């Protein structure tokens, strides 16, 4: 064992005990109580220090002596105050002889504080000693002879009262008497108790002796708990000893600054998209039906435009759009296809309806605005847009949520490059190596694809949807190059990463949950 590292770990109480033991030359064994006195420690402090030192094998037990010790029980203290049953009965019998009254065992049993077992035990002993006689009718008479028990009991109670005594300090007769009147199993009502007192004596072990040697060589060092600027300033830290801590204890919690785990997830997606060459688009929370749906070739009678699907704005109800030219261009496409080569939906387009204000219900609205604002060709765009749906809120439906989506424009865009882009998303966003492309339907794309991937942890899942924007969408907005529209459904991935099962918890108000969610992506 490395003595110096042991020394460093010593508590001040341990040092005190070691130095006390080491100070006596030649070495002697110390009894615990002597050691407590010599080291000037409370018994409780000493016993702690001794246990620690034993555990470190710096001291050893030299001997262990077991001594029987006598003390008074609570009943013994009562007998000492008043009188023992045997004394009371003898006195009563003598009293009766003096007055000539008859005294029966029954009379004795009715006296307060004397119960039948006390009475029969005492009477039996007095009769055996010849101090009493029992005559006909259960009457008790004194013989006039003394009772050695009764005579010895009183001084014994006096001697043991107040402090305990070693059993062996009494004469063999008295030891026997104590034995007869002490608490034993099945006999709790007795005046004496005999306990075993263990007296241990300790000596320094060889390593303890060398520890003492080293401690003495070091000289007495003051221990401090905390380094302070003062100690550093005057260099006095050199004369101090820094107490070692129990570093295995649980650390107290600390409040920390931290990003929200869901936002962190979206940040990683954002960084991925930028790294793949996508430019961010921003849009407004309040949109016209025109940008939200009409521009996306969703007919005005489309079921998803119902008041049960979209939130309408109360005031103002309609946008004040100064330039209606783009509205009528899109309107013509709805009506008869315009110049797109389409037959259109064949209904009367309502310009007023197009200006109706809604809460943005799909991120594609942002893409539509980008298409109309002379985008780069080739160009890649994305947005992480907050959208709103008229839905009953439950574990899988939120009333406002993020949509991650965007567009890719380029002369080289076609169905196969669309699949290539989705492949890229599968690898980069979901770390998936296996993908499946399924036919899908969106009002604004043709052909349309659903992207299914085998996620390393989640298994097969739908990662997103995409397609080539219909010419009915792009042409009236001024874009003739082919355009991919894509969207990623990431909430399920986010929920698994955050360990939650209810979509509402993405926006939870539970601070403890937010603080303790790790969010590993």
């Amino acid at each position: 064992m490395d003595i110096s590292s042991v020394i460093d770990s010593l508590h001040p109480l341990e040092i005190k005990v070691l130095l006390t033991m080491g100070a006596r030359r030649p070495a002697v064994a110390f009894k615990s109580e002597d050691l407590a006195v010599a080291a000037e420690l409370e018994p409780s402090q000493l016993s702690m220090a001794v246990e620690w030192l034993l555990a470190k094998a710096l001291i050893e037990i030299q001997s262990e002596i077991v001594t029987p010790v006598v003390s008074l029980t609570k009943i013994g203290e009562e007998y000492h105050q008043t009188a023992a049953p045997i004394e009371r009965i003898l006195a009563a019998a003598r009293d009766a002889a003096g007055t000539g009254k008859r005294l029966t065992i029954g009379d004795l049993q009715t006296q307060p504080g004397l119960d039948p077992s006390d009475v029969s035990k005492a009477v039996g002993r007095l009769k055996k000693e010849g101090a009493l006689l029992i005559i006909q009718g259960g009457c008790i008479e004194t013989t006039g002879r003394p009772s050695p028990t009764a005579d010895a009991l009183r001084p014994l109670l006096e001697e043991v009262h107040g402090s305990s005594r070693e059993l062996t300090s009494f004469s063999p007769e008295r030891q026997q008497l104590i034995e007869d009147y002490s608490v034993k199993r099945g006999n709790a009502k007795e005046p004496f108790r005999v306990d075993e007192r263990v007296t241990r004596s300790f000596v320094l072990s060889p390593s303890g002796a060398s520890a003492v040697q080293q401690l003495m060589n070091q000289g007495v060092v003051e221990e401090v708990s905390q380094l302070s600027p003062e100690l550093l300033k005057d260099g006095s830290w050199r004369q101090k000893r820094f107490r070692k801590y129990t570093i295995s204890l649980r650390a107290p919690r600390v409040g920390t600054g931290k990003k929200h785990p869901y936002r962190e997830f979206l940040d990683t997606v954002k960084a991925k998209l930028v790294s793949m060459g996508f430019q961010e688009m921003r849009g407004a929370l309040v949109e016209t039906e025109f940008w939200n749906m009409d521009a996306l070739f969703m007919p005005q009678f489309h079921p998803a435009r119902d008041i049960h699907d979209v939130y309408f704005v109360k005031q103002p109800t309609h946008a004040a759009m100064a330039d209606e030219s783009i509205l009528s261009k899109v309107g013509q496409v709805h009506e008869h296809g315009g110049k797109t080569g389409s037959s259109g939906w064949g209904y009367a387009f309502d310009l007023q309806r197009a200006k109706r204000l809604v809460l943005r219900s799909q991120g594609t609205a942002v893409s539509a605005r980008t298409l109309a604002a002379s985008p780069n060709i080739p160009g890649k765009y994305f947005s992480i847009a907050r959208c709103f749906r008229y839905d009953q809120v439950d574990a899988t439906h939120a009333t406002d949520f993020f949509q991650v989506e965007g567009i890719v424009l380029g002369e080289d865009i076609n169905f196969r490059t669309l699949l290539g882009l989705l492949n890229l998303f599968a690898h980069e966003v979901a770390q998936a190596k296996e993908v499946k492309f399924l036919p899908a339907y969106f009002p604004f794309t043709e052909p349309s694809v659903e992207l299914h991937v085998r996620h390393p942890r989640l298994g097969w899942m739908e990662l997103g949807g995409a397609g080539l924007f219909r010419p009915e969408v792009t042409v009236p907005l001024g874009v003739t190059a082919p355009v991919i529209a894509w969207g990623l459904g990431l909430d399920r991935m986010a929920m698994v990463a955050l360990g939650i099962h209810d979509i509402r918890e993405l926006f939870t108000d539970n601070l403890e949950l937010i603080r303790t969610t790790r969010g590993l992506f």
Partner: protein
Amino acid sequence: MPTITIFKDDFESLLKGTRATHRTVSIAQVEEWLMLVKGELKGHNPDTGELRIELQDSNRPDLWCCEGIARQIRIKQQGKIAQYPFLTGKTKPKAKIVVKPGMEQVRPYVAACAARGYQVTSQGLAQLIQTQEKLAEIFGHKRKTVSIGIYQLSKITFPVTYELVQPGEARFTPLGMETVMTLAEMLMVHPKGVEYGGILAGASRVPILRDAANQPLSFPPIINSREVGEVQVGDDQLFVEVTGTDLPMVVLTLNIFAANLADRGATIEPILVEYPTRTSLGKRVITPQDLKKSKTIPIHTIEQALGQELGIKVVQHALEVYGYEVSAGKGSVLVKLPPYRQDLMHTMDVVEDVAMSCGYGEFTPVMPAQFTVGGLSRIEQVSDRARELMVGLGFQEIISNILGSPEQYSGHMRIDETEWGQTVKVDNVMTLNFSCLRQWILPSLLRIEAASSRAFYPHRLFEAGDVAIPDATHEAGSRTETVLGAVIAHAAAHFSEIHSCLDTLFYYLGKEYRLEPVPHPSFLEGRAGRVLVADKPIGVIGEVHPEVLERWQIAMPVVAFDLNLSQLIS
């Protein structure tokens, strides 16, 4: 996107046509085939043989039924298109429907046919009813554009008349009722009258179908007569009618029903509809009728869109086994949709069908190769920087709903009637809890405070997110802006503590600011300030008013700031 329930053995027998022997198919096989129809298997009950299937394509109502799904797969399997002889125009109609003048004001069009020789099974009846409901509800816009009635043919004497009556005049026992009632009573009492009566709102006279014996067949689009219009298992002579406001949709719907019944073995007898005036299909219209939607498409266009050279033969074959009639020309194909489809608006619709018929798996993905530069918007960059700084200052980030209640965003904040309290409100409110957009961030953070008194203190929270600020000068009546809000809550939370954070933030954002006292009802008077940058107010800071805290039931002092990042950089 309808979801339908079909029976597996019914589906299997339809797959093989009426003559071939029945063969059991695996669920995995069904799932693979469903790709052809944009269908997804949502459930399978092995005990009853029921399959729940979601159909995605809202322009393909012919696929919203067991017969249509089986037909699309069968054509591909057998490599030849389904033939419907009743559409060739060679069958002379034996029966007639006369449309009386005035219908054009209410519900102008009707189409009908008879079907003989298919004895209705219980599974077949369930499918018939399901198709009727899905088509009327989703394709027919809740029966407004299209509704369907099916009857026992044997009880009808032709010609049938489609005309208008006073709602109090005509009477019959409707389906689901025990007694005779007038049409007016049906509108008031019958569940379907209550549900769909709105379609006829404003019409003083309403549609009725009656036969030559003046027996009412139905009150379209509300309810059939119980006498004639209750089809039962075992019936083998049916009459199907479709009424509506859009003639092509009405005819298409009837075509779908006729094809479905023909697929089940019925012989379809066309019916002549006589209109008082000319319609887009003429005055005398025979239904069902193939509307022959067709288009000439250059092969080059298809190949370019798909990114793959296919050649005319491949394209022709792919479309034929998908149900098209195709005639190949020089470098182009003339394609005609089958009679149960009308969804050809643009060449791209055909392109997708080519891809689906070939299978998406046949196209090798290619990476878009052109170089583009990625990047974030200016406001996102500033917002990200501010978020980093707030985290460094020891704040926990929060993310909240934007849609909330005026009570949270203004009422609790004591700013109801002030310039700060205006919000963008929802017209069609579902619940008050989601009835307006937030105009600042602070209430979103107090929402967390109110719920988190057990989380150990101090609390330092922030959120950077979008808000909508009403602005009459803006086209949409509001501006969407990005705002940063922050709160500190603990027993000794103090103005100077949040002020230090704001000050640090501004230092690192590289902006000069000053505070000007402001009497803002959300904050303690004398402990609140407007944040000014170049004399433009862009935020507030202060100790949150105890009454605000009481309204939120927050029992801890809170200090806060709310800073408009969009305004900061504008």
